[in-house]
């Protein structure tokens, strides 16, 4: 079974703090993604990566950055946390092309981040 592991289930951080969300996958997937899920807005793509050291902006990258130094690890960074970044953050991974179309994305269990 493919596993995508997010390091924390729940986090509470203060406004202005730098926050790191970590994600690790164990199936040698090329693609990795960060989404946030908010009520009434569904899942929105923040950043994604198709290879090591490669990153691309998604639909809502403002206030976030990412790092992918190793194939299995994709980190999301909130440079200066704000209350409007309180959300459920979901990491996902997939094969590059054909595998995605048969199996879709594999998601982690999510990190519920609260910024106070």
């Amino acid at each position, binding site marked *: 079974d493919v596993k*995508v592991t997010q390091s924390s*289930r729940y986090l509470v951080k203060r406004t202005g703090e730098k926050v790191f969300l970590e994600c690790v996958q164990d199936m040698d997937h090329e693609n990795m993604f960060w*989404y946030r899920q908010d009520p*009434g*807005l*569904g*899942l*929105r*793509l923040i950043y*994604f990566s*198709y290879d090591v050291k490669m990153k*691309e902006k998604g639909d809502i990258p403002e206030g976030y950055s990412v790092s992918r130094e190793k194939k299995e690890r994709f980190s999301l960074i909130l440079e200066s946390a704000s209350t409007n970044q309180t959300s459920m953050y*979901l990491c*996902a991974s997939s094969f590059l*092309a054909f595998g*995605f*179309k*048969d*199996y*879709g*994305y*594999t*998601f*982690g*269990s*999510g990190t519920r981040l609260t910024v106070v």
Partner: protein
Amino acid sequence: DQQVKQNSPSLSVQEGRISILNCDYTNSMFDYFLWYKKYPAEGPTFLISISSIKDKNEDGRFTVFLNKSAKHLSLHIVPSQPGDSAVYFCAASGLSGGYQKVTFGTGTKLQVIP
């Protein structure tokens, strides 16, 4: 601009009956469509997909129908079971900026009543 829309935020169905979840999209360049199921405190799990060159795909109790002319897809669950109670996300995929990009809908919460 919501390119993938699920207009029903919630749906209640009796156990054993059919559940029909609907999804509309606006981008005619989408070439693949997927459904995900999400339980509380878990990540979404892939359920079923369909290519734009097909109009139906079936997997056990789950069938997805695609109507390209109407830009509409639906997920049928027959028979519905209490364990199907979850939030269902519709997703559409297409090339954007040289990459295969997936856009998710807002989700429909399905409750199957025993």
